[in-house]
């Protein structure tokens, strides 16, 4: 019987192949994601282990509150003296390792796109984390070493000049050495190494270290030394062995990158979900077409379990095949993704691809699992074929499912799904569980719709097909054909619906985000010019705002800083600081309690809070709140004002004065600065003046006007949107494959009928047209259902965000374009089936049994 299954699969190989494609895409994405992240994590691991090769013990500060840039606060240099007194310490070195910018003499970045750049101090040779491949380490105050990858990228060599920017003005250095870190490429990341005092000056960490590295005396184990040092240094410092330190850093990077794998796996799941619809349909049709064969097998004495097994084993084999191919494609995909990321500037460190056993096992289990689950229902249907079916003349068994049962099940599922989504929207569960519930709810709703959709196909296809019917007989037949097996059309369309619902959803959301950002800039920013770091997410030196305010034509320039904090009773929040004397000249906010005056009056431990935080923590003017800073300090702040909701909280949840930020929260760089020009002056002219003045001291600062800022933001949103589109395209392509297979199978079923139509004079062209129209009806059915579903989801999920100033907008022309493109995709999907149908030999088709 097993060999029979093999032979059946082989006899229907194109069909099996098409079925496999439904799974291959998703599995490729699963395997590719794992290979990519394993490889990247492995490379980072190598880097950190290599960098800590000679370090027995490392001291860093504990990260109290996770920061956007992942950095740890620096700590007092006095710790080094204490460490040196510990018995067993042979060598100890205090180091700086902070983010900065590395530019060539012209002020152009040496970095690889978005990858961070670091300014570091050189250590004694033994504790040095880098290896010098050329030249020597920096000795003088104007000397620097640079990693060879960055030097190569910018065509720099020893003796050339580079500019380093820390928290102050850019300073020129002569390149005296080229380095390599940990033997692997460090992604696009680059490191410049200068002497310790220079590094401290550049990064504004005079009298402080980011890290202390220690070598032990012979005979003293790292663990022993670690414990001894722990006893003498302040408890808020983290003392680890070199190996522990490398492990932790590698795992932190792993955690930071995990969002990438979660996002990619989510898209893989979507594609597999769509694929399961296709598999379900192919198996359902195949089982229906084999009704007589199953009946015959039953008359020969095959039991129900044997029939079940033959169908499931087919599913198993297809699943295995698809998983294997998917894994191979995934490995290629990982390389492709890595190349793609480095092409857009997000280079990841590379080494030979890591293909873990877990990757293979998980891919196989998912691939086979999805195929088996999707083929289970058709397989059960096959077992219900009675032996007497062997004698019946009709090929296709009628589906006997009861409408009321369908309605009941789908109604129940829809209620559960909507309840799941509602529970998140109302109670606001955040993070993983919230996303899982929304996802689960959405899946339940989609399944509910697909269960009930056969009932909807007739009326919907009638409407969509109505214009086609006017095109003549072929249109009329296509319209009728799309309705004659409603559940088949329904499942095919539902697969497409899923992809298009998501496309619609993200399109609406991105459009809402775009217009909300524009709104905020228009209504909240009074400053016409914005000073921001490269890419908009690197800090800028505070002197930049100072310099800007001294330029003629500038009325005020005000810097704004950010830090992540934890608020007792309200969890992780973002805190910003403003310059009280000038803030009201550059921004305009709406108030729930208090007024703009309160910002001007901000001093000491006072804060203005957002409506969201005020709600969550029950705050109003006069109340105090307890905040944990990134340095581990607990600060008590008094509320002096509450902002109205609807400001899209671009200032975070808590606003304090710049002085307070520096003193208690340890942030001494601006995140961005806003500039107000003198009325009556051309903004462009002032912008040009600032730009010119910045050229030399602040080459990394971007000087943008409001329109440029909007474009900038829009571009970021659109880049993300484009990436999501590409990933969703996988699911859409899978559903189009579904249309192709379903059409081919239907044609096979209708061979006789097509032969009859040809024999009474239908031309090949008309046959092609008829098939094409049918595909278009199915595609448009899916597109419209997806559109409706997407709009509903966007609407639902948009409700709780309205309070944050987020407003959905419905880009009607874009959505209409999507429907048109989908209809066209239907035409493409019909090419092969239509050609196949038109090439049927009339005589053979008529006598086909």
């Amino acid at each position, binding site marked *: *019987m097993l060999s*029979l299954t093999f*032979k*059946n699969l*082989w*006899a229907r190989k194109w069909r099996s192949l098409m079925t496999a494609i439904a799974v291959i895409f998703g599995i490729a994405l699963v395997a590719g994601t794992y290979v990519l992240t394993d490889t990247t994590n492995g490379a980072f691991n190598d880097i950190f282990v290599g960098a800590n090769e000679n370090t027995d013990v490392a001291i860093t500060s504990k990260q109290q509150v996770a920061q956007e840039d992942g950095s740890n606060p620096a700590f007092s240099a006095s710790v080094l003296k204490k460490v040196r007194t510990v018995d067993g310490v042979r060598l100890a070195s205090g180091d700086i390792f902070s983010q900065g910018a590395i530019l060539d003499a012209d002020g152009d970045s040496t970095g690889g796109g978005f990858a961070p750049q670091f300014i570091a101090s050189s250590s004694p040779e033994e504790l040095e984390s880098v290896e010098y491949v050329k030249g020597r380490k920096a000795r003088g105050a104007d000397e620097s070493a640079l990693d060879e990858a960055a030097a190569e990228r910018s065509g720099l060599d020893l003796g050339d000049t580079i500019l380093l920017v820390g928290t102050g003005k850019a300073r020129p250095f002569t390149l005296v050495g080229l380095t390599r870190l940990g033997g692997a490429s460090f992604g696009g990341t680059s490191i410049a190494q200068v002497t310790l005092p220079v590094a401290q000056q550049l990064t504004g960490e005079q009298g402080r270290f980011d890290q202390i590295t220690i070598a032990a005396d012979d005979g003293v184990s790292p663990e022993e030394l670690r414990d001894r040092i722990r006893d003498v240094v302040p408890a808020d410092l983290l003392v680890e062995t070199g190996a522990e330190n490398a492990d932790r850093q590698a795992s932190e990077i792993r955690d930071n990158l995990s969002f990438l794998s979660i996002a990619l796996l989510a898209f893989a799941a979507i594609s597999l979900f769509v694929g399961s619809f296709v598999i379900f349909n192919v198996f359902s049709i195949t089982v229906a077409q084999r009704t*007589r*064969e199953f009946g*015959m*097998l*039953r*008359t*020969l*004495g*095959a*039991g*129900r379990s*044997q029939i079940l097994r033959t169908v499931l084993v087919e599913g198993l084999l297809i699943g295995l095949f698809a998983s294997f191919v998917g894994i191979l494609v995934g490995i290629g995909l990982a390389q492709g993704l890595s190349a793609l990321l480095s092409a857009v500037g997000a280079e990841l460190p590379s080494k030979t691809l890591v293909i873990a056993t877990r990757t293979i096992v998980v891919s196989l289990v998912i691939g086979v699992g999805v195929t088996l689950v999707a083929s289970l229902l058709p397989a059960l249907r096959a077992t219900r074929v*009675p*032996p*007497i079916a*062997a*004698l019946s003349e009709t090929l296709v068994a009628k589906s006997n499912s009861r409408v009321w049962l369908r309605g009941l099940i789908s109604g129940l599922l829809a209620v559960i799904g909507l309840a799941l989504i509602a529970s998140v929207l109302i109670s606001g569960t955040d993070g993983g569980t919230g996303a899982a519930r929304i996802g689960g709810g959405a899946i339940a709703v989609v399944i509910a719709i697909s269960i009930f959709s056969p009932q909807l196909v007739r009326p919907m296809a009638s409407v969509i097909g109505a214009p086609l019917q006017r095109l003549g007989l072929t249109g009329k037949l296509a319209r009728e054909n799309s309705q004659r097996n409603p559940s088949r059309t329904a499942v095919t369309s539902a697969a497409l619906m899923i992809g298009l619902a998501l496309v619609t959803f993200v399109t609406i959301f991105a459009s809402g985000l775009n217009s909300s950002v524009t709104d905020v800039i228009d209504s909240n920013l009074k400053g016409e010019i914005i000073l921001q770091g490269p890419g908009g997410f690197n800090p800028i030196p505070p002197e930049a705002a100072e310099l800007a305010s001294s330029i003629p034509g500038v009325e005020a320039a005000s810097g704004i800083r950010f830090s992540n904090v934890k608020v007792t009773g309200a969890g992780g929040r973002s805190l910003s600081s403003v310059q009280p004397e000038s803030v009201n000249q550059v921004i305009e906010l709406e108030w729930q309690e208090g007024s703009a005056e309160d910002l001007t009056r901000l001093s000491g431990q006072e804060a203005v809070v957002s409506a969201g935080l005020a709600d969550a923590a029950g705050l109003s003017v006069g109340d105090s709140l307890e905040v944990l800073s990134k340095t581990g300090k607990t600060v008590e702040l008094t509320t002096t004002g509450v902002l109205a909701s609807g400001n899209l909280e671009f200032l975070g949840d808590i606003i304090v004065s710049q002085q307070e930020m520096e003193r208690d929260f340890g942030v001494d760089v601006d995140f961005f600065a806003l500039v107000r020009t003198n009325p009556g002056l051309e903004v462009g002219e002032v912008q040009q003046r600032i730009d010119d003045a910045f050229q030399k001291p602040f080459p990394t600062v971007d000087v943008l006007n409001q329109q440029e800022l909007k474009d900038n933001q829009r571009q970021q949103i659109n880049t993300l949107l484009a990436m999501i589109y590409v990933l969703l395209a996988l699911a859409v392509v899978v559903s189009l494959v579904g249309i192709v297979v379903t059409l081919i199978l239907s044609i096979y079923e209708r061979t006789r009928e097509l032969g009859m139509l040809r024999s009474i004079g239908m031309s090949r062209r008309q046959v092609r047209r008829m098939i094409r129209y049918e595909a278009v009806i199915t595609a448009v059915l899916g597109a419209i259902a997806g559109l409706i579903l997407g709009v509903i989801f966007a609407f639902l999920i948009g409700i709780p965000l309205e309070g944050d100033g987020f407003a959905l907008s419905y880009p009607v022309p874009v959505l209409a374009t999507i429907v048109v493109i989908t209809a066209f995709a239907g035409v493409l999907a019909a090419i092969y089936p239509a050609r196949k149908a038109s090439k049927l030999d009339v005589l053979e088709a008529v006598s086909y*049994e």
Partner: protein
Amino acid sequence: MESTLQETPQPGASGATIITASGLTKIYGEGEAEVRALDGVDVSFNKGVYTSIMGPSGSGKSTLMHILAGLDTPTTGSVEVEGTEITGLDDGDLTRLRRDKLGFVFQFFNLLPVLSAEENIVLPLSIAGRKPEQDWVDELISRVGLQDRRGHRPSELSGGQQQRVAVARALVTRPTVLFADEPTGNLDSKASHDVLELLRGSVDDYGQTVIMVTHEPDSAAIGDRLIALRDGKLVHDAPPVSADAVIELLKTLA
């Protein structure tokens, strides 16, 4: 009542009674639309007898065979195969019954296109998980005249050859009864003749029991016993004399 039936002398050859059907009715639909496909049929079949069942369309001949073969259930009445009541059997027992005791030959051959002639022939054994006795398989293949065609797929065989494969497949398990449903309905006269000869031979040489539904007088005449139905009732039960006599009989039924 059963015993009286078993004692009823049967036309045709002798042998132990292996199928006994009594009081069979089959009613489709309700009220106005009620159709009595079978209306009180009592009949039994002895071992080694070749029985033809005839009757005009709608006479109930197919229904009768379906019920005898356990493919359909009667509205009332019972069917015993070798002393086992089959009308109340569950799916598992029916499956075992078909596997061990029944063989089928269909009008449309119903061969698996992906299997060779020989593989199709041993298919019932594969399903049952039994090893074929190669001597028996070889004998059947030579008997159906397909020695040089055993590796061919059904698509490479003529209709007559395909039906001969189907007959060999039905015989390979040495079933208690072989049911044939219009086995020549889709064949030309030469091929029909070959297939009927095969069935005849299986009765004569192996003592096979055959129950065949047909509407062709020539086919019916080859049997040992001819049963005719009309409007769900058994109206004729005697050995056939000749094809012409069968035609005459059919005329009286129509």
